[in-house]
């Protein structure tokens, strides 16, 4: 993408594009520094994602979010998707047809009809602030934690699939069969609905979601959207970002660059 930007700059040199280009370089530089800091001193970086003692309640002082730079994802997010699959064990259910297989995260490729510009990105639960799946769930099984993570309470999900009808991102899947060898932290009970948990089990231990760990360098940032000092908040404050279907006004926790 940066190559393309340079091409545009060469063709049409003007102040505005130079300014954008400069911002972009500054941002990439900042991301680079962040990545380097993370590599050298993980403790410093992980302070953003502090481990939560088991007895401590979730608070809304934190809102977890994710920023994905599609320009930095040469594989369109394949590595992130593979990491998610490995972490949670979905996608190879023995009996389900391809259309019935769960996909907690998928690679979506879209090509603009006019410009023919093609973009690939991983799409998963966008952890909306006002999530339609939470609104429609009759039992409250589909719920949002105070820290913004949208989850399914597998104990009270009756499997009505109304949340799947309501999700504008098609982020949810239905478990179509009995499954063996489920991960303890990712229960996949038959007849319930499931989706990206933002690796809540890792976050609560002060770790990063699996997809973030697997993402190419500088392609994805995870952190607290409520903390103005977090890398993600700084990047968002400086450069903004896009939401998929922002017209719905859902205030998603997952933001993108380059879409």
């Amino acid at each position, binding site marked *: 993408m940066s190559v393309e930007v340079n091409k545009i700059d060469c063709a049409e040199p003007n102040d505005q594009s130079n300014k954008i280009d400069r911002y972009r370089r500054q941002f990439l530089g900042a991301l680079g520094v962040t990545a380097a800091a993370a590599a050298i001193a993980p403790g410093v970086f992980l302070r953003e994602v502090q481990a939560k003692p088991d007895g401590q309640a979730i608070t809304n002082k934190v809102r977890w979010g994710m920023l994905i730079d599609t320009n930095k994802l040469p594989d369109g997010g394949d590595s992130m998707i593979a990491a998610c699959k490995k972490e949670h064990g979905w996608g190879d259910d023995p009996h389900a047809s391809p259309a019935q297989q769960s996909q907690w995260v998928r690679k*979506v490729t879209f090509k*603009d009809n006019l410009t023919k510009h093609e973009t690939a990105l991983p799409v998963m639960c966008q952890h909306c602030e006002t999530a339609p799946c939470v609104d429609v769930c009759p039992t409250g*099984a589909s719920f949002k934690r105070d820290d913004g993570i949208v989850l399914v309470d597998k104990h009270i999900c009756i*499997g009505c699939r109304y949340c*799947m*009808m*309501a999700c504008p991102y098609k982020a949810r899947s239905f478990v179509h069969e009995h499954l063996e060898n489920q991960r303890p932290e990712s229960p996949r009970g038959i007849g319930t609905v499931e989706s990206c948990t933002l690796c809540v089990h890792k976050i609560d231990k002060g770790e990063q979601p699996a997809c973030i760990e697997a993402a190419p360098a500088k392609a994805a940032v995870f952190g607290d959207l409520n903390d103005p000092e977090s890398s993600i908040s700084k990047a968002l404050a400086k450069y903004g970002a896009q939401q998929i279907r922002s017209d719905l006004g859902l205030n998603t926790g997952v933001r993108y660059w380059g879409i």
Partner: protein
Amino acid sequence: MTVATNHSVNPQSDVLSPEQISASRNRQLVFTEWQVSDKTFYGLLAIIGLFILIAAISFFYVEHHGHYVTGMNNQVVWGMPHVFAIFLIVAASGAANVGSLGTVFNKKEYQPLGRLSLVMAMALLLGGLAVLVLDLGHADRLVIAMTYYNFKSIFAWNIILYNGFLVIMAVYLWSMIDRQKLAKKFYKPLGYIGFMWRFILTTGTGSIFGFLVARQYYDAAILAPLFIAASYVFGTACFILGLVFFYRFSQRDLGQDIQNRLRYTLAIFIVLVLFFEMVRHLTNLYATEHHGVEAYILSGGDKITWLFWLGQVLLGSLLPLLLIWLPSLKNNQKALLSAAGLAIFGGFSQLYVIIIGGQLYPLALFPNASVESTFADGVVATYSASLPEMALGVGGVALSALVIVIAVKVLRLLPERLQDE
């Protein structure tokens, strides 16, 4: 045979003038159980029971294996069972219309049929709910659905609306058939409550789709009135078939007057449904963001398009209207039955187009772009109902029929004669 005279034709009038007494004697109604031979009755139960048995086997089959044995998937999450369930639930509300006409609007012609109307309404709702519940991923967690409520969910409200409907209709029915006159005072109030409840209930059912912001084919307030109008079509059509069936099999008189009233009720609401559908599609066709889904439904060329134009519009709406209004078919019972049958077929087509068609069309994540993924983004999904799904749906209809048949056999619901005055 026990004969019960009807005290509920006009239960509010405690004191009758001599003229009224003599008039009411002349028109005295006698309600009796459905008089058919045991052979017919138990034969009928056996046939209905067979369908229920097949549905039960289908339920346990899906329950045991999981939904992978159905045609439903992560793109089309609601399938044929939901088409049946929603048809029956919507029809239930419409079937109670005859009761409302007698009680709320004081239409004497309909009052003798109030009992059958309410029983049909309850039976249809039970059948629909059974299908809906048995298709859940966790039907065993029904108690959770009854004890955990998220009041922002229209589904949660519907659980209350459906259960409330059953209770209201049951007490309303009691107020009609109670010979001790204990419940007489409930007759009018429950008639009004039931009438309003029906509107709210069908609004709630239509809003299951109306409240879905995600999908291009839903997310429209007009779905609620559309469902209300459709409920009159489905309910009246079911009522016509049931009424004629019971009267024919017990050789009772069924006058032209009541048949014609039901005939025109059916016609008016078919026209109203067509009107709402037209407004809905025209509004969608005006908005660019809906052009894709409209093109898919109206001219996409697959079975959804056929079901819309041929199933819903031509066979399910225009042909019944022709059968009802063609002068040469006036007072023709076969034409009326055909019209009712076709209207039911049109109703199923309509719900299939709305429920399945609305899901087959992909979500619009990125407008003005060609989209692809491993999860059916940007392409029309596929769905074909599996045998267990069909069997479960038909089982819901059978359950409704079972309740109605047993009710008319053991309760005094049917007037002996309904001949013209």
